[in-house]
């Protein structure tokens, strides 16, 4: 999709939304969506990852809603493991590159991309395909610099004081770009868990109270926007995977302002409810976001083929 098509599509969608809806026929969320405010949670289905990402962000009201001209943006994908994109352990490179393009198009001054991987960072950046995808863009894909971790008081009970990457905290806009996959302890890793990549220090200790630590982390630094890559998902042997048989291809992108809502909706891909995830429950308890998606303005361009269970 080129820009002209996109603008045309947006204009048509926008004007369609302005049409008065007959009351009582459409469900409640559609009536909400028909109001002037763009939706806060979007789920697209089908399409190439790059186009789907554009579609999802456009449905949210466009990147301009989040990135103002001259902003410093940090995109935090999941580049945690030395796996190729088709093994669904890392965010799809096209999703990351499209988000970076959208930020640049919205006038971002700097776009920084990084992760603190579990495996060797060089291999993760290259083998995930993300380094190559960002190569043609004016994007700073950097390795984490140990000196830029700063001990910060998170205000939490478990995490308390922890080294956190300054660039993530100081950025004007933090875009969380996780992939949806299985995890042995937290059951799933999506947006909230992906934020662990901005933590320094010995992260192995965090697993003792993982759910609460994650909730405290997202409460301390809620991302401006979460774009969950579920074009491929890993349903077993996560978060590292490695077996193509463990990969499914829902072709879904979920995007939203509320990290809790995105993860709750993402859980449905694995036939789970958001409330079945400890870190989602903890995050709701801390008031980070909304777990009951009926209370959100939502949009499912391309149709929603799977029942959402609150």
């Amino acid at each position, binding site marked *: 999709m080129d820009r002209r098509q996109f603008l045309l599509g947006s204009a048509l969608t926008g004007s369609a939304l302005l049409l008065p809806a007959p009351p009582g026929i459409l469900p409640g969320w559609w009536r909400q969506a028909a109001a002037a405010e763009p939706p806060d949670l979007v789920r697209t289905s089908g399409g190439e990852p790059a186009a789907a990402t554009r579609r999802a962000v456009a449905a949210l009201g466009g990147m301009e809603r989040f990135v103002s001209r001259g902003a410093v943006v940090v995109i935090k994908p999941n580049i945690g493991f030395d796996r190729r994109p088709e093994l669904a352990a890392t965010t799809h490179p096209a999703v990351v590159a499209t988000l970076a393009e959208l930020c640049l198009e919205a006038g971002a001054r700097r776009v920084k991309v990084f992760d603190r991987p*579990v495996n060797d960072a060089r*291999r993760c950046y290259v083998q995930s395909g993300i380094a190559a995808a960002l190569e043609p863009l004016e994007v700073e894909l950097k390795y984490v610099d140990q000196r830029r971790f700063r001990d910060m008081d998170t205000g939490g009970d478990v995490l308390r004081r922890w080294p956190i990457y300054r660039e993530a905290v100081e950025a004007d806009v933090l875009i969380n770009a996780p992939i949806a996959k299985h995890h*042995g302890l937290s059951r799933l890793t999506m947006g909230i868990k992906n934020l662990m990549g901005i933590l320094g220090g*010995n992260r192995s200790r965090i*697993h003792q109270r993982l759910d609460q630590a994650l909730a405290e982390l997202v409460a301390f630094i809620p991302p401006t926007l979460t774009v969950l890559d579920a074009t491929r998902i890993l349903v077993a042997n996560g978060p590292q*995977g490695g077996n193509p048989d463990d990969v499914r291809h829902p072709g879904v992108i979920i995007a939203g302002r509320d990290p809790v809502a995105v993860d709750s909706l993402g859980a449905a891909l694995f036939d789970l409810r958001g409330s079945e995830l400890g870190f989602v429950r903890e995050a709701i308890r801390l008031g980070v976001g909304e777990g009951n998606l009926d209370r959100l303005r939502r949009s499912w361009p391309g149709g929603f083929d799977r029942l959402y269970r609150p």
Partner: protein
Amino acid sequence: MRLPRLNSLRTWRLLSQAFFLLLFLLLFLETEGKGGDELGWPVKLFLDFDPLILLTTLLATQTVPVTFLLALVVVGLTLLLGRVFCGWICPFGTLHNLCGLAARHRLIRHPAWLQWKYLLLIIMLAAATLGVQQAGLLDPVSLLIRSLTVGIYPAFSHAVSALFDTIYLWQIGGISAVSEWLYGFLRATVLPFRQPVFSQSLLISGLFITILALNFHERRFWCRYLCPLGALLALFSRWSLLSREVAEGCNHCGACGRHCPGGAEPHSRRDFAAPPRPAARTTKSTERPADDAPSPPATALPWLAGECHACFNCDDVCPRRLISFGFRRPAAWRKGGRATLPAPAGTGPDLGRRQLLGAAALGIAGVPLLRISHPPEGRAQPLLIRPPGAVPEKEFLGRCVKCGECMKVCLTGGLQPTLLEAGLEGLWTPKLVPRRGYCEYHCTLCGQVCPTGAIEPLTIAEKTETKIGLAMFDRNRCLPWAHGIPCIVCEEVCPTPKKAIWLEEVEVTGRDGQRVRLKRPHLDLELCIGCGICEHLCPVSDKPAVRVTSIGESRSRENQLLLYNPAGILTSNQPY
């Protein structure tokens, strides 16, 4: 300082030395993964060209190393031109020249020591015939790469980083911005991706610095008296076609002798009838200053062709330009010509029958002495975890030249030099220390850079099936097992597609009777490849609750645990 002249061979020699030193350093820096599956540079090039490694590997393993032809190039070059490798190419020799700049030019001071290097060479060759590979200890290329890898480069990196970190932390306006730009540039060019840490950096770099410091005692001390590769090339240079002639008219000013890096006695009077020494130097105005050295004492040694590095210093410094080099019948073929080994009895570097046999006997006798420190077969050292692709231990020790290339290239810094874990024979061979760094699942770099096939190059598919050991849990230290605290980090990071670490969900009772649900890790011995990432990231960080030992390593027939292994891994009921 003399100005370089393009018609001087010495100038060309200096250019060649600079080129090869820089090439060496470039290849050294490029011995580092950048995220791809291959390095893209022939980083072991200098080792490939090393005839000493070729010969000892040949003797120790009775197999022809893959790099056979390249080392023969150096042999051929030596047969043609003498020890040009020492004078024009060897990066270690060039470093000696640089260190020697701070020292005075002097005549050879210990002519009798010239034979040491031959004796060392013979000891190594004799040991190699019995399968003990010790050439790497003193082979100049191996020694240089090892010392840089383990000692000098980490120290350099640490010093530079500490400097820039300090400036960064001060946050002085302006200065920090410039320094950060410079630091970024250095990181992109000469600094390592991560600060290397090696357990023996002090010992190995201490030896290296000592060897360089010997230049202050005598220039190119190492090359003259100790270098076994130099000794080997000296043997070949007996047949060198390039030989040196001194025309009539030498007044024995001794300048050539002082500038001879090899101690080849170019000022020797024994080779030609010389006029009596003039009482006073009448031609002083035409001479270059002779470095304020006293007149050389009359020497009994002849011109030692084998010690000549073909550096062309003597040609260059001779005030009367009497020295010339030309192609002639090799010294060894000429009647009365003097090759290095054996020199005429009683003239210095005499390698008499007694010394020769003594050295050979020492090399041979050393083998059982080294070998009796070995654990018997089937009782392998638990912490001797060899890199993936390492051949069976006996052959491994016959091949490994301790060059440290694998340690340099290891992405995680987990490959460390052994001290005594592999016996004295295996000193400075590589072992994986998972606490330092695990074996990256898809990485095959160590096998790619190994010059002798001690670590065979593996495909990624082979690598991910190669066991280097097995992990086992220490249930007395493991958080879920011993303390009822959730953890599972080991399971999360386990890289095999079907995880070798699996979880059992249990409910335990806490101190106050509360029920706690948690997952306890178990290990699947068939799936575990011993990569050690579980040990590396275990939160019980001082003495991890999951540790890898060498048992089950694919390369060993004896060091096995399972009776039956469906993965087809070698076990004792199968042939080698």
